[in-house]
């Protein structure tokens, strides 16, 4: 077993454990900090799969942006002294049944389906230049539409979170 394989299995275990902790812990702040480990691990998995640019974007957007947003949401909405029981859950039986069934089916499918694969993997190359050319060429229309979606979501979030009765 080579070193990258060991990295893959170690990081996978780390991702699974931190994600499971985020799902099953009752403390929402601990869940968010556990999610930090999950996002880091997924970034390492992207790196192992030779998608270096996506790995960096994952670190910047998820760890730097979404995680901070989640922390803001937690701190703004729950009383810190009541944080230990701010995360009650209901319907564990059916929920666990849905999760375990979908997980077993998907993992079984991953191993049993006859995936079409290339015989020899290409050498891992830096992808930043190719991704930039794709974004300014073939994928330019979705790129511009993503900009409009981001603008709309910012305006919508400000409108939703504003104190009512202020301004317009």
């Amino acid at each position, binding site marked *: 077993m080579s070193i990258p394989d060991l990295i893959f299995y170690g990081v996978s275990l780390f991702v699974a454990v931190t994600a499971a902790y985020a799902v099953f812990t009752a403390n929402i702040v601990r869940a968010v900090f556990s999610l930090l480990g999950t996002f880091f691990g997924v970034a390492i998995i992207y790196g192992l799969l030779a998608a270096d640019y*996506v790995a960096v974007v994952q670190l910047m957007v998820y760890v730097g942006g979404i995680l901070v947003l989640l922390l803001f949401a937690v701190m703004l909405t729950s009383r810190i002294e009541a944080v230990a029981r701010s995360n009650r859950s209901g319907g564990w039986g059916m929920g666990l049944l849905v999760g375990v069934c979908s997980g077993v089916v998907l993992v079984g499918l991953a191993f049993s389906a006859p995936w079409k694969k290339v015989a020899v993997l290409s050498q891992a190359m830096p992808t930043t230049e190719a991704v930039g050319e794709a974004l300014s060429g073939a994928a330019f229309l979705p790129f511009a539409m993503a900009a409009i979606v981001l603008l709309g979501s910012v305006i919508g979030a400000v409108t939703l979170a504003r104190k009512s009765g202020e301004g317009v």
Partner: protein
Amino acid sequence: MVTVGLSQFLSLAAVLFALGLTCVVTRRNAVAVLIGIELMLNGAGVNVIAFARFGGSIVPGSVFVLFLIVLAAAEAVVALGLILAMHKRLRSVDLERTETLKG
């Protein structure tokens, strides 16, 4: 060079997706449901990148996952706004209490 196959990466993605689904279905805190959605989106991203890597061309998959990450960020922003509005109106982020439309 990684020698583990496509199936192992797909299994990791499946585990992430199943954990996120469990979180969305069982949690009552709106922020925890948002965490579950992010876990599922991460699983989908790992899935796409794994297929792109083992299917031969990584760049189209990378572009697709970039859009996925951008939309996840937009969704998180709007969800935060909704959670704040909900907390302002109901003084709670318990999804069991979002029943004001019930007659």
